[in-house]
């Protein structure tokens, strides 16, 4: 299959399919090594689930024009990330494949597509909505677990203790106090209840 066509139908080349284990293809097949999906396993309600999540409200507006992918700075350097494909997979109901994927974590949240999308799908917020669902189901990248641990410990991503404040004083800067307790209370109340430690 020509690469442009593979792109149009949402297949990947050597990077491998994000969609699960492959299946053998017969001789003369036009297909690549990608799996064939049993669409009866798809979750048609996934789009509604996303639409009910803050930031996901506009998912049903997408008409797959690819303006997002065309201007995406991440897609510009790697084919691991393709926002249009992710939205399309979500609309098809490929819930398990989307939530367990690495690619939902590759949006750099630059808002380029947000500004240009003719249907106002608000993809960076949509990605966050999908990530929220993924985290609730235990799909948490390690980096992310570490970041939340820092927030719990220091109320910020980078610790400010005596060492940092002494260093600041040397440059004539006032000390900064951490507000760890307050942030921890917010994360305990509203955030993932057991912390994200159970993550993948």
């Amino acid at each position, binding site marked *: 299959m020509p690469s442009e066509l593979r792109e149009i139908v949402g297949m990947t080349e050597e990077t491998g399919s994000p969609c699960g284990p492959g299946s053998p293809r017969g001789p003369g097949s036009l297909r690549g090594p990608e799996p064939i999906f049993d669409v009866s396993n798809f979750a048609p309600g996934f789009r509604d689930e996303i639409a009910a999540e803050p930031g996901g409200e506009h998912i049903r507006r997408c008409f797959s024009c690819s303006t997002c992918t065309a201007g995406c700075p991440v897609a510009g350097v790697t084919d*691991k990330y393709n926002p249009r494909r992710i939205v399309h997979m979500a609309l098809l109901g490929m819930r398990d494949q989307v939530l367990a994927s690495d690619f939902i974590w590759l949006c*750099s949240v630059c*808002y380029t597509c*947000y*500004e240009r999308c003719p249907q106002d799908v608000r993809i960076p917020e949509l990605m966050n909505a999908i*990530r929220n669902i993924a985290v609730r189901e235990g799909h948490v990248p390690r980096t992310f677990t570490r970041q*939340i641990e820092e927030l719990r410990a220091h109320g910020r991503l980078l610790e400010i203790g005596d060492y940092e404040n002494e260093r600041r004083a040397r440059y004539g800067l006032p000390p900064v106090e951490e507000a760890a307790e*307050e942030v921890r209370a917010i994360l305990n109340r509203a955030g993932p209840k057991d912390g994200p430690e159970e993550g993948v």
Partner: protein
Amino acid sequence: MTGSLRGSGSLRGPMQYALYLGCSVPVRGMNYEMSARRVAERLDVELKDVEGFSCCGFPARPADWEAGLLMAARNLSLAEEQGLDIVTLCSACTATLTEANYRLREDADLLAWANEELAGLGTGDAALSTPRYGGTVRVRHFARVLYEEVGVEAVREAVAEGADGGRLLAGFGFAPHYGCHYLKPSHIYDGFDDPENPQSLDRLIEATGARVVRYEDEGQCCGGGILGFDEETALLMTAQKLDHIVEAGADAMVLICPFCAIMYEANQRRAGKLRGQPPGVPYGLPVFYYPQILGLAMGFSMEEMGLKLNRVKPRKLMQTLRASVR
């Protein structure tokens, strides 16, 4: 000068702000903080330190939207309690606080919910007092304050009174990097600049007496948002812009976000390696925070502008400065 959006009867000075530092600036961007504080003081912008600010909430949003919103709301409420608007240095903080503010001001139910949640933080002796947020705070990036409220003309005048009669940087060409969250999502920023063809940082660079250098794909994101998830992809994004700026022949890059600086300066060598640059031949592209070059043009010293903390040594600029002192 823009008037206060606060209710009538505010005795607050027109250019008095709570300085919101966020996570990166006070630890990894002290040169940014030092220069911003000095420059602000000289331009009669009073930056006040407010106790109790935490992370803005940006890193919590992918895990839990509510947690991110509550962290932002809490920070906003602390500024409001002091009767101050917020000035930010980090662009991600700017967008997070501005967007949370935008939603809380638009949606009375959401605001009531956030206040209820914040009031319930901690229990008994461990209750954590958080002021109620009324939705009156404005959030502004420092560069936007310089552009809109101080004004480019006033910046230019301050430079004219500075080093070499404002001609210190006449021989320099700087490549502006606006970054993403300073401009986008644009609907929360009242259209103060055009996200596809921004002008504010260009005008501010010109006001220092330097020339603006154009380069390919200026709107490109630094990649910082995905550094922790896919380092190689993030650094490829960084390298792409460094390539374009070096090709265009700029003396340095000028930016206004600590995370962009981490990508373009702290990670410059690694980005170069990824591009197949031979070891020992790094990009060598100096990276400045805007207030640093403004301060130098206004006559502040290299020490005062924290140049010692710039990792890629700006040799040409340092030579020019030494010559001007003699």
